[in-house]
């Protein structure tokens, strides 16, 4: 039996009457890289938040390295154990770092929480982590406001790696950075994955980016998985109209925004009509072929 680094089955979450995540399943191999793509409201961020325990799923299972975490953690030991396995890097490095905590303290905090290290060992490990992400002593002493966006995101990555997680969730982690810096961070992430075998779950709407960073892709639309499979195959021959729309939406020479706008409206109408009868009568019915890691397309 293959043990997945991350395994999600039939995850579901609603807020009031609105179903944000609807029967989402996928898995991530150890050291693999999976991208969840979709527009805002597709449920991609809610999915990520459920994985790290920031939201509680209504139903479904989440397993990280084989251990179930579908229910709320009881007690500090369980919470810490879960945090060691899965870490997250957020979109905005200007909001995700405490402005009053120096870079060194920021990276030491998880070490203090999770490992019984002596202060000396801790400092050594901290320096190792900072060096890993390309930051030196000068940055270690600084407060976040003295750092650029790219440097801050490096700090966030170093902190996330401190617990040696099996899976790192990157929620639009390079979206707020300048292009020339984004490419540096992507290089760094690729290098870290090669060296440590950590698995990545990218949450993004940028398909051009996905093409270069993810082995597999999961396309979400209105809370459901509409297509999944190896990135190369899905992008080369997208089968679901929404995946095609996302692909066409990426600006490039010869781009036709008017056509995309028309396609988008047509798709929304078609799906509304297709779903209206069955969704009203039998909300729990789903297509069975939404299994991840192999090529699949739903309606």
């Amino acid at each position, binding site marked *: 039996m293959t043990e997945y680094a991350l395994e999600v089955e039939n995850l579901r979450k609603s807020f009031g009457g609105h179903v944000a995540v609807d029967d989402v399943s996928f898995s991530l191999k150890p050291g693999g890289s999976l991208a969840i793509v979709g527009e805002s409201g597709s449920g991609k961020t809610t999915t990520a938040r459920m994985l790290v325990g920031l939201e509680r799923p209504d139903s479904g299972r989440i397993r990280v390295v084989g251990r179930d975490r579908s229910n709320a953690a009881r007690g500090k030991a369980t919470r810490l154990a879960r945090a060691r396995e899965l870490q997250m890097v957020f979109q905005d490095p200007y909001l995700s770092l405490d402005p009053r905590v120096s870079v060194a303290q920021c990276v030491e905090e998880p070490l203090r929480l999770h490992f019984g290290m002596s202060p000396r060992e801790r400092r050594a490990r901290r320096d190792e982590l900072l060096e890993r992400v390309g930051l030196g002593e000068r940055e270690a002493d600084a407060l976040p406001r003295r750092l650029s966006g790219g440097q801050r995101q490096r700090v966030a990555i170093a902190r996330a790696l401190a617990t040696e997680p099996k899976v790192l969730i990157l929620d639009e982690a390079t979206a707020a950075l300048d292009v020339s810096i984004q490419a540096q961070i992507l290089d760094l992430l690729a290098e870290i994955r090669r060296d440590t075998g950590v698995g990545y779950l990218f949450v993004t709407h940028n398909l051009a980016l996905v093409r270069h960073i993810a082995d597999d892709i999961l396309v979400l639309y209105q809370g459901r998985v509409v297509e999944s499979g190896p990135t190369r195959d899905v992008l080369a021959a997208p089968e679901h109209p929404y995946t095609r729309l996302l692909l066409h939406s990426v600006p*490039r020479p010869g781009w036709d*925004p008017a056509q995309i706008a028309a396609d988008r409206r047509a798709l929304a109408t078609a799906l509304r009509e297709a779903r209206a009868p069955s969704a009203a009568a039998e909300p729990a019915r789903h297509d069975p072929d939404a299994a991840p890691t192999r090529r699949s397309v739903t309606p």
Partner: protein
Amino acid sequence: MTTRLLEIENLNVRLAAGRAARPILDGVSLHVERGEAVGLVGESGSGKSVTCRSVLGLLPEGSQAAGSLRVDGEDILTMSSNRLRELRRRDVSMIFQDPRASINPIRRIGDFVTEGMRAGGVPQKDALKRAEELLESVGIREPRAALRSYPHEFSGGMLQRVMIAGALAGGPRLLLADEPTTALDVTTQAEVISIITRLQAERDMGMLFVTHDLELAAAICDRIYVMYAGRIVEAQSAERLFRRPRHPYTSGLLAATPRLESDQPPHGVPGRPVSLAEAPDGCAFAARCAHARPGCTEDEPVQREIDGAQVACLRAEELIHD
């Protein structure tokens, strides 16, 4: 020679004396013709937004500007405040990045769209009728009901359409768009861009489109200016800029952008973008440039024309980036 719709010549901007005193723009020159879409591309701190805002006279408080900035021959920098208000209402409009931050949340959509018209003396009834037409032209369903709605009832993409409708209310000749789709999803971005480009063509407006996204600029603009550290480093037609970037910074930006159609992984530019105040002597990009020579850190490169491109690089003749 006919006057250009927008002509910026040798614009220098400095923040005022005191702790924050520093230069932010150095010798910026650009122009936009009638009906032309022009891109202004750069990373954070490059001065692209300051340049764009300066056209409406929206300079940072207490800053000093030198040079000239003319709309249809009239200089913004020496204009009376009355004339400037009239210009903002009628001739030049701006679409800002974040509609939630730019539209008053406690006033109705109708108030927002008609504000300029009412200030210009258009009767309320006519202004509302005109606003309804404008909302319809940007694809708002049930425009009459929308007039009575509040901003929180709209999604980001819909509210950005409202902002476009408001920007068009005075029938401007020049449209300034400051990252108008950066806060939107890719599919919504395509929709909003299609509205902007359609209206720009229909109304024969000139447009200055500010963005950090070179691909987006190339997809919709005729010409592109690339800024780095408060200066313009390259200007070319969009198509040629992509095929044959002349400045190492432009080719670096192109190489750093992840592409759908390319197997080439994005390649980072070492270091980070600097602002004009941090820029050392000579070429501001030299420290990050793979082609830098000792001379590059001594003399500031002067912009010159090579094969129809304006380039500010000492080695532009020798270097061709394919």
